[in-house]
């Protein structure tokens, strides 16, 4: 018995060590490969700074849109039962399983110049492809499921007693959502937003297909890294590290990460 426990412990330790090595080794390899001089030279390159700024702006904008659009859906999926719920859940998860280039193609066929909505959009004077708007749309498309999933899980974890008391006091649903559900789910919402933001920041396939590659307009950091790989491996690594450092810094500073999922705010919410 004691031996079994010891062995289980050793196996667990080994697994943790293996995961640590598996996740950290590639990052370490990037760090070892980069030459400080290359890194500095790339940091001084205006096109790199353009790409970095564009990445931060578009991913931040996409995250705001994702939270605004995703919150009501998260509430619906997290707190209500209705026919067709499983279908809706599967539909919302679709962008997660779609290969990103296919997602980009689908967006083109929907919002492109000759796409389903292309005619209507051009009447409004809007051409989406090859614009910064297209970058944000692609990012929202791929990031939305992450936020919806995390927020629904958060709302589901809120103690039913609170919402039931609110209902007996004749509180409206929106009031209950705003005063009880959302405040108690803040850690999960932050986790969802962080996951969505990270996905948006790293987005490549849908962007390149839907938004194209226009320096300063649609060339985000992942696109810049990809093209640098064609000509200058060391510069590509320097760019990749920059992206890594910035994303790590933002996630660390905000204290939001996928791991805040399921933590509950304030007075806790045991089921």
């Amino acid at each position: 018995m004691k031996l079994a426990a010891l062995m289980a412990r050793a196996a667990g330790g080994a697994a943790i060590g293996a995961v640590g090595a598996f996740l950290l080794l590639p990052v370490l390899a990037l760090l070892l490969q980069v030459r400080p001089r290359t890194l500095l030279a790339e940091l001084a390159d205006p096109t790199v700074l353009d790409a970095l700024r564009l990445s931060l702006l578009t991913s931040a904008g996409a995250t705001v849109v994702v939270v605004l659009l995703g919150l009501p859906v998260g509430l619906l999926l997290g707190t209500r039962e209705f026919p067709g719920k499983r279908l809706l859940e599967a539909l919302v998860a679709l962008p997660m399983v779609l290969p990103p280039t296919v997602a980009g193609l689908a967006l083109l066929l929907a919002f492109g110049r000759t796409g389903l909505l292309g005619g209507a959009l051009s009447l409004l004077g809007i051409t989406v492809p090859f614009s910064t708007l297209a970058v944000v749309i692609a990012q929202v498309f791929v990031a939305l499921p992450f936020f919806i999933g995390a927020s629904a899980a958060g709302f589901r974890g809120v103690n039913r007693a609170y919402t039931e008391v609110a209902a007996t006091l004749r509180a409206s649903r929106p009031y209950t959502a705003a005063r009880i559900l959302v405040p108690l789910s803040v850690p999960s919402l932050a986790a969802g937003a962080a996951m969505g933001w990270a996905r948006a920041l790293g987005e490549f396939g849908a962007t390149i297909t839907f938004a194209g590659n226009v320096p300063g307009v649609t060339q985000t950091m992942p696109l810049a890294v990809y093209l640098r790989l064609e000509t200058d491996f060391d510069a590509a690594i320097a760019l990749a590290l920059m992206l890594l450092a910035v994303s790590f810094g933002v996630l660390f500073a905000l204290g939001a990460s996928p791991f805040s999922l399921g933590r509950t705010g304030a007075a806790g919410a045991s089921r």
Partner: protein
Amino acid sequence: MALVVLLGACGGDREAPAGRTLTVFAAASLVEAFGELAAELERQDSTLEVRLNVAGSQQLAGQLVRGAVADIFAAADREAMQFAAARGLVLEPRVFAHNRLVVVAARQPEVDMMLVDLLNLATPGLKLVLAAPEVPAGRYAREALRNLSGAPGYGPDFADRVLGNVVSDEVNVRAVLTKVRLGEAHAGIVYASDVSGPDSIARREGIRVIPIPDAFGVRAEYVIARLRSVGDSAGAEAFLRLVLGPQGQAVLARYGFEGVGPGR
């Protein structure tokens, strides 16, 4: 029933000849032609299995330099081959095919009116996509535009005016074709091989091809070489013979490449 299937599978395994594998790193534009040549070589030598690794030439060169194991490297430009050759990785690079550039235009009424000949590439408002200058197809396209600037009737600022119409620098040449086929861009510049080949009807759907005259076009050179650390030298030699021989050249020609003629 399941048992029978299992036994069958085992039997199949035993009958398979002792496997030799030939790994071919090939530029993305070669995927169809080399797929056919690989199948042909496997037909000629049933003990040989040909594995194709297809990507951008520069990416392949990078993989090789960083220790990837291959027997054959076929690049879409000399620079990528030079990158590997400078590190002593390849033996006797040889040009085995050429590829020309063509303009492709979307089949839309407005484009039919706007884009009649090459001069119209500079028409203001035309949405043009090129491959990014970092990839060979993008470099060649810009070179061809500069050549045209020197031609009578085009004007010395032709290239600049055309480049002003570029709405996106796509990451590879197939992405250029996709944007034009979907009508998101009015026109683009791609390889002739991108719009040729046995399945050309599908590929040319929705596009119109405008050739670039030989005098101004740029001939992309495709270079092939054996790796120095080749695992199966007999297989590698057989593949090189096939590609450079009349049969290989005929296959390449069918996919829109220009051959180098036998014996070269």
